[in-house]
């Protein structure tokens, strides 16, 4: 039963490798947005440090959102999404596989590059570790929730803006918890509560959103 899912995962990763610019633009966007903040608000290290968790998280979720439009739209345009509906596997699992591939291509690079940007914003090593952990748990949530918006806007003109309006409000909880985790460490308390809640949210999103996304895909292709 996992063979078809592996085939889909390999297909999406191969396609991403053949068009690396798609993944690179997302990382580039993340880096540039974070780099612009010190230019805008001045170089005071302590001030930058206090802003860092929020800046990094907002930049990360904007970067993920930027990449969402392409999650299903390429498959939709060339007709492969239609064929996926005929694959003898539950559509929810196929969607989950696509989201996983999407996270590997966009979310994971953000996690990996975040320490560099955190140093730029004067975060300390223990805070950077928590930031990476929070992003590692949080970016899959962003991909999972975002997939619903990507599916609901399939084939609509100006879909990208619509995704932002639909999805950004739903990104508030992971943003609060993720940035809060780093803030907590910064102020000398434990990040455990934030991270636990973030983890719970990821588990919930993992089980609930693929089915909602699959239903949305079916409706949009009807």
């Amino acid at each position: 039963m996992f063979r078809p899912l592996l085939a889909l995962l390999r297909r999406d990763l191969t396609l991403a490798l053949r068009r690396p610019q798609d993944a690179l633009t997302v990382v580039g966007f993340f880096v540039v947005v974070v780099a612009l903040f010190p230019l805008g608000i001045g170089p005071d290290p302590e001030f930058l440090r206090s802003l860092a968790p929020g800046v990094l998280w907002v930049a990360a979720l904007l970067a993920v959102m930027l990449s969402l439009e392409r999650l299903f739209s390429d498959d939709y345009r060339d007709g492969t999404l239609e064929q996926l509906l005929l694959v003898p596997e539950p559509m929810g699992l196929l969607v989950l596989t696509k989201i996983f591939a999407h996270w590997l291509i966009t979310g994971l690079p953000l996690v990996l590059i975040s320490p560099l940007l955190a140093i730029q914003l004067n975060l300390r090593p223990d805070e950077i570790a928590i930031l990476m952990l929070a992003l590692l748990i949080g970016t899959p949530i962003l991909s999972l929730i975002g997939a619903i918006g990507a599916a609901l806007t399939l084939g609509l003109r100006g879909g990208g803006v619509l995704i932002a309006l639909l999805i950004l409000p739903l990104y508030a909880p992971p943003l609060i918890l993720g940035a809060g985790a780093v803030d907590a460490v910064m102020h000398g308390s434990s990040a455990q509560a934030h991270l636990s809640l973030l983890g719970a949210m990821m588990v919930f999103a993992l089980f609930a959103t693929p089915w909602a996304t699959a239903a949305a895909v079916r409706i949009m292709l009807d």
Partner: protein
Amino acid sequence: MADRDFRAVDLAAERGERLLFEKLEFRLSPGQLLQVSGRNGCGKTSLLRILAGLSRPTAGEVYWGDEPIRSVDGGTGTCLGYLGHQNALKEDMTAEENILIAGGLGGDRPERETVLAMLGSLGLAGYEDLPVRFLSQGQKRRVALARLLLQPRALLILDEPYAALDVQVIEVLRGAIEAHLARKGMIIITTHQAVDIDGDCRNLHLG
């Protein structure tokens, strides 16, 4: 190959506010071909999408044996293959990769030699290793046909398969269709061209 009938019962469909067809019924038995004809815009593609379980009809139901097509055990894709207007090919991948991946997704896992032989028989020998975006419209259509013909499904639903194909390939496709019917498969096809096929052919005229 197929051991069940394929039935449409009291189907109706509308697009926008306009009724395309209603009270449409037919039964297709193993070894039969159904050619759907009608002028542009009469709902041929809508009908085929409903039959493939991709769209919901306004009324009525499509049955595979006794099961509604959208809730067939194991998924709709286990009993039918569908080729729509779009070729469903990944432009950045080669013809061979496209077919192997589609086979992997469908759980068929065709052999590489079989794929190459099929591509060869459709006149694509020498083009297997080229990304699909470098192929012409007709060649892309042939790759999509090769993919469909390599899926061992009882029912094949083909929407305008002859579009953009040249005469030789139409002959090859005709042979493949006749072979599929001889194996007790079923075929539903829309086309504007008259292609005479040996076998048990029915006609359904819309509009």
